[in-house]
């Protein structure tokens, strides 16, 4: 009988013990992988969203900072306004290289004149824009014309092959951007001219007309000159323009970063409890098994099995169970994170981006190895102990 055959016989011989080990391995693998994927996905998403914004400072009306973050991170529709004259005033401040206004709009709630309910929409000025056009160029999208929009990763056409219904106006979905895991994935982007065109059409075709004030904007995005101290510039803007709040890109998504840090602490605490407990439980199970099977293993020794063979048979048995439990755990963790990622985003208030297949495979591999190592660690002591027993004494007892 080979080593693996003996291990398999022992596994099927005591199903309760085998299930306990499988469950412990499943728990460790599932929790460790789930937590890793979640934390790394959230951090990657925050990073990507901040990079995609492409501005050093975002100026919003005072009090609209949280709404702005909610819109960019979670796609929560937001509308706020400040005078358009602020754009020129900001451009005149020393240290500012470029300014570009944006208007934030939202589709109507549950209205048949809109393809999606309460969808966040960003209108930009193509003449001055330095944030959205680079994404379009990077993904080989053409410049957006009148009546054309580009959607986040989760936007798909609902009217014909490439149409979207916005306030009763059918706009052409020219393409989709790469996923960020944030609210930008369920938002659409178009030029200010398209926004005004939709507003014009909405007066006759929408349940409620869209208002795009000529003399107002929602936010102004700023690019600073090289070697400019961004913090000092933000202070200058705050003092020079009453009623606005400049958000530095480094401070953007501060609430989400705080949330992520507290999540990380909680995960570390739970993992610090689960991991040693699982190792302890598996170790105890195998210690009991080693005592139960003393006579059987004594017979094996008397028949010529070496100490090494006895220890290896226990380790092989534990390895098979650990692999089985860890594989199920990894499958469940990936399934849960893939299917329930939006629920996690909404519940925890953090964005989330799925890793690339390569990164996922690496993380799965690490998860499996960590679990197998944990189980080996737990079984090592009982395996050494039982292999050192004298066969004659073991059989007599």
């Amino acid at each position, binding site marked *: 009988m080979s080593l693996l055959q003996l291990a398999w016989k022992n596994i099927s011989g005591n199903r309760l013990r085998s299930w306990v080990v499988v469950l412990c391995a499943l728990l460790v693998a599932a929790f460790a992988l789930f937590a890793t994927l979640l934390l790394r996905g959230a951090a990657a998403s925050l990073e990507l969203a901040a990079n995609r914004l492409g501005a050093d400072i975002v100026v919003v009306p005072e009090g609209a900072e949280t709404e702005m973050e909610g819109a960019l991170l979670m*796609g929560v529709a937001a509308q706020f306004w400040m005078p358009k004259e602020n754009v020129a005033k900001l451009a005149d401040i020393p240290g500012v290289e470029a300014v570009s206004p944006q208007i934030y709009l939202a589709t109507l709630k549950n209205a*048949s004149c809109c393809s*999606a*309910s309460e969808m966040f929409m960003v209108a930009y000025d193509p003449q001055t824009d330095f944030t959205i056009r680079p994404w379009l160029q990077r993904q080989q999208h053409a410049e957006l014309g009148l009546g054309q929009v580009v959607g986040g990763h989760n936007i798909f056409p609902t009217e014909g092959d490439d149409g979207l219904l916005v306030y009763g106006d059918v706009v052409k979905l020219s393409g989709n951007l790469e996923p960020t895991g944030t609210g930008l994935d*369920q938002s659409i982007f178009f030029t200010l001219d398209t926004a005004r065109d939709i507003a014009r059409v909405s007066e006759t075709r929408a349940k409620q007309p869209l208002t795009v004030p000529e003399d107002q904007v929602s936010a102004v995005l700023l690019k600073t000159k090289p070697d400019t101290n961004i913090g000092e510039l933000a202070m200058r803007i705050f003092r020079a323009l009453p009623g606005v709040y400049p958000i530095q890109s480094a401070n953007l998504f501060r609430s989400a970063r705080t949330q992520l840090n507290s999540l990380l602490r909680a995960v570390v605490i739970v993992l610090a409890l689960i991991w040693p407990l699982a190792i302890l439980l598996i170790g105890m199970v195998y210690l009991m098994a080693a005592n139960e099977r003393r006579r059987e293993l004594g017979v094996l020794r008397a028949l010529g099995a070496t100490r090494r063979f006895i220890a290896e048979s226990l380790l092989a048995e534990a390895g098979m169970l650990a692999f089985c439990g860890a594989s199920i755990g990894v499958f469940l963790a990936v399934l849960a994170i893939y299917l*329930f990622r*939006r629920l996690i985003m909404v519940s925890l208030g953090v964005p989330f981006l799925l890793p690339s297949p390569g990164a996922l495979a690496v993380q799965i591999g690490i998860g499996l190895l960590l679990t197998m190592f944990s189980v080996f660690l737990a079984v090592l002591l009982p395996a050494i102990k039982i292999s050192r027993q004298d066969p004659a004494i073991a059989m007599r007892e």
Partner: protein
Amino acid sequence: MKTVLGLVMIVAALVLAIAPAFTDCESAGKMLTTADGRSVSMKCHWAGVAEVAAAIPLGIAGIFALRSRRKETIRFAAIIGVAAGAMAVLLPTALIGTCGNAMMLCNVLMKPIELSAGIIAMVASAALFFVARDQEVTAAPAVSA
């Protein structure tokens, strides 16, 4: 093992049939308002209703897996289970679909629940197919008078 897998199939069928009633957009009071002011159910509601059609054969297959001792019957139940699980996955994704906005309740809650129940039903049914090899009962020897 056959009992556990049969129970998993029945639980998955119950989840498929019941969960949409509490997790689609209509359960949160969201309905589509047409131009003439009428309120109509959204796409996700009908996807949820259609899931019952997948849940019924899955539940029946689960009961057969629990009660039957014949290998052929269990294997047939397993095939039905895989098909019903696949149907449960396809309804909210490819066949009917859900609402357009990815952050709406149906996409956040209903669809993942239905997909996970469907996938688990498929995996359990596939496992049942292979486990069924060991379930055949040998006939009792004839007792001579």
